[in-house]
């Protein structure tokens, strides 16, 4: 919503929330059982995020096509540069879309996810792709194999329709994932 809402309408609310965050006390007992980073493809349905959170997983960071990271990072306009040029360069250099093929880009995407998990103190990663997106089908498959193996990050790999159907099946998957993360935390605590 913040991507499309007129700035003058939303800025007051954001400033108010920022002020509140300075003095907000954390809740004594979190209603969530684990913290997850949500990664993936085109996901513009807030109900999906709500579905994940209703299963006990708090989405602490979102890195999908319309997500906050890296999509909402500052676009710096250098002196003498046109805004259009700055936007184009920003998209080309910061995008985590799997359509970027150079070797270093392919690896940096995995590292970026791992760094996000670390930075946001997440317990796991949910990677979501929409059916029929070729890029994300492969990227998701690789994320589900490499992130647990090389970065020790529990990963849940989901394929869904663009329209959020089959919520029952998704709920089961997310609940199972949350339980597996809890079990892992308990085992590590021992």
């Amino acid at each position, binding site marked *: 919503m913040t991507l499309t809402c007129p700035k003058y309408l939303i800025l007051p609310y954001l400033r108010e929330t920022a002020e509140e965050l300075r003095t907000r006390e954390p809740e004594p007992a979190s209603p969530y059982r684990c913290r997850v980073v949500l990664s993936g493809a085109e996901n513009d349905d807030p109900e999906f995020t709500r579905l994940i959170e209703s299963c006990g997983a708090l989405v602490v960071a979102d890195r999908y096509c319309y997500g906050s990271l890296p999509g909402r990072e500052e676009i710096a306009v250098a002196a003498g540069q046109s805004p259009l040029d700055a936007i184009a360069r920003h998209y080309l250099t910061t995008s985590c879309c799997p359509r970027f093929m150079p070797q*270093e880009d392919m*690896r940096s995407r995995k590292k970026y996810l791992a760094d996000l998990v670390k930075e946001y103190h997440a317990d796991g990663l949910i990677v979501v792709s929409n059916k029929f997106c070729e890029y994300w089908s492969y990227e998701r498959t690789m994320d589900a*194999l*490499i992130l647990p193996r090389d970065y020790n990050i529990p990963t849940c790999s989901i394929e869904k329709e663009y329209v959020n159907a089959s919520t029952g099946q998704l709920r089961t998957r997310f609940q199972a994932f949350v339980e597996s993360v809890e079990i892992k935390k308990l085992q590590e605590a021992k």
Partner: protein
Amino acid sequence: MSVKKRILKAALRKEAKRLRKARRARRARRSPLCRVLRLFGKLFALLAAAYAALFAVFFFDLDGKLLYYVVEPLLVRHYDRMERKNPLEMPYEMKSE
């Protein structure tokens, strides 16, 4: 063995020996040209037999049948049983060499 059979066997052996001797004598009497021609004849017969065999293989699709029913199943069984390295163990860092 009875006496009659023994006599018959001896007679046959004698006849075979006589025929072999006669064949050797005939061969010795042949001219070199005749020998060459006979050699070519045998070669031609061999080539003709090979040609006919190849044509039979071609016409009755024996090569296809052999490959389909014998060679391919054997090879597929071998490939299915082969030990292969697990690509999921491949590291994922940048290869810089």
